[in-house]
């Protein structure tokens, strides 16, 4: 691999031990995946934040990197943590968990990483442009950045994204090259898509069928998807099938389809069957929205629904802290909280320790949450569009 003078200095340890370790990892990954050089990235999003997912081993690793003096070179921010940093106690997060979680965040802060813990950085002003190279690692953010924004990122892991943040570069391979951004599956949809949860459901089905490949959707009959819909679609495909990139005809900035692409049609019958299969219970202990983290327009919609009929059960709406602050300034947060909703920042239903908080049945409108809640939180599911789950 050809390295620039600056990259070679990092590798030789002349810019400190932290940069050296990070560059060693990037060079090894470059070798493994056949990169011939590094490419500068404009931002990094680092997964491996919740104590629930990385445990003591991950905490040890982060302390180790911080102790080596590693500092980030580019704007860098985090995936959701295991709890709301400000109101963890009120939400019922166990104290032993909170202590470990704060240690993890402290290690990241020591390295110069911004304490924005969100899977939707593009909603809080970190919105890369078409063709911009980035190193992101949360699967739904990767999908949104690649597909809807037309930026370029591989599916980074926590350590590789952290190393990219520390060195400001990433190995040039995979989805950084246009020749690899080609769909191998054409998807026609012969079903009604009336809301976000339908797009999530569609994503679950297509993710399973695409098997790590890149799907290209023909225009959706009768539906003009907005960014919230596409966020749900991409998140579900990433969760059920590790899909890092997809195209939608006439919507996404890119559209490249292989001549040999297979074509499939998703029917209403399949959608109905998939929805039925997800529903294991008909009432829930907690309702969780905001997977991926909710936008202001989603909060407006939720607030209007709650205005008509408040909720009695615990309702979490997971958001980036910056969105919560904006919602407070708009008076939206107060309206939602008055009618029973809780705006939960920095975390989400999947990486928070729900299973240790007495919850057994969770209602969701998100395909992605439906994939992870049973395995990561031992929850039984109630799945449907918002109006179907808010008052169950």
């Amino acid at each position, binding site marked *: 691999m050809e390295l620039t003078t600056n990259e070679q200095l990092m590798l030789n340890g002349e810019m400190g031990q932290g940069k050296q*370790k990070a560059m*060693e*990892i990037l060079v*090894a*990954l470059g*070798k*493994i995946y056949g990169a011939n050089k590094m490419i500068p990235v404009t931002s990094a999003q680092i997964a*491996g934040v919740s104590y629930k*997912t*990385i*445990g*003591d*081993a*991950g905490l*040890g*690793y982060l302390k*180790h*990197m911080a102790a080596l003096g590693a500092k980030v070179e580019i704007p860098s921010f985090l995936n959701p943590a295991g709890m709301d940093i400000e109101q963890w106690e009120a939400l019922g997060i166990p104290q032993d968990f909170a202590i470990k979680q704060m240690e993890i965040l402290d290690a990241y802060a020591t390295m110069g990483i911004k304490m924005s813990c969100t899977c939707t950085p593009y909603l809080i002003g970190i919105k890369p442009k078409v063709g911009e190279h980035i190193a992101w690692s949360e699967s739904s953010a990767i999908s949104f950045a690649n597909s809807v924004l037309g930026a370029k990122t591989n599916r980074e*892991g*926590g*350590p*590789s994204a952290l190393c990219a943040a520390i060195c400001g570069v990433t190995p040039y391979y995979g989805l950084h090259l246009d020749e690899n951004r080609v769909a191998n599956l054409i998807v026609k949809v012969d079903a009604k898509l009336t809301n976000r949860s339908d797009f999530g459901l569609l994503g679950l089905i297509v993710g399973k069928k695409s098997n790590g490949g890149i799907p290209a959707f023909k225009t959706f009959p009768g539906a003009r998807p907005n960014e919230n819909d596409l966020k749900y679609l991409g998140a579900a495909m990433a969760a059920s099938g590790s899909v890092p990139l997809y195209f939608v005809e006439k919507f996404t900035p890119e559209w490249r389809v292989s001549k040999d692409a297979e074509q499939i049609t998703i029917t209403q019958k399949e959608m109905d069957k998939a929805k039925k299969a997800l529903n294991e219970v008909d009432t829930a202990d907690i309702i969780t929205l905001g997977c991926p983290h909710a936008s202001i327009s989603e909060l407006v919609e939720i607030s209007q629904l709650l205005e008509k009929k408040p909720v009695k059960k615990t309702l979490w709406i997971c958001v980036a802290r910056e969105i919560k602050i904006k919602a407070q300034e708009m008076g939206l947060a107060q309206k939602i909280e008055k009618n029973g909703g809780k705006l939960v920042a920095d975390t989400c239903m999947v990486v928070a320790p729900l299973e240790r908080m007495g919850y057994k049945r969770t209602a969701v409108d998100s395909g992605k949450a439906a994939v992870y809640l049973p395995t990561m939180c031992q929850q039984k599911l109630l799945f449907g569009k918002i109006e179907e789950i808010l008052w169950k």
Partner: protein
Amino acid sequence: MEIIGRVISKGHARGEVLLSREPLSFLGNVNPKTGIVVEKGHPLEGKSLAGKVLVFPRGKGSTVGSYVILEMKQNGVAPVAIINQEAETIIAVGAIISEIPMLDKLDVDVFSILKDGDLVEVDANKGILRVK
């Protein structure tokens, strides 16, 4: 006998070979306090990786496995060197942060010439595996 390989993580070590023809997941399947493989039905189940030159095809499972390798190193129960058929991210990252010498893509099929207990030398500065 000298076998040429690709350097993934630099360093130098000597030790006894412990060989698995099956991929290995570290998270949940290796005890980071003892270095013992606990995955049910795995060919290495019950065996300790501590101090061994661990030869296996590749990593699998959770990416948190990289951190488990570092935890083993800090507890003094990590392998002294790693040989993979073809490296992937989990083991490569784990080896580098833990400063465990690692080679992959050796130019001879090591599974046919090595067996458990063989004494070998891994020179991961030059990319050479020396077999006595």
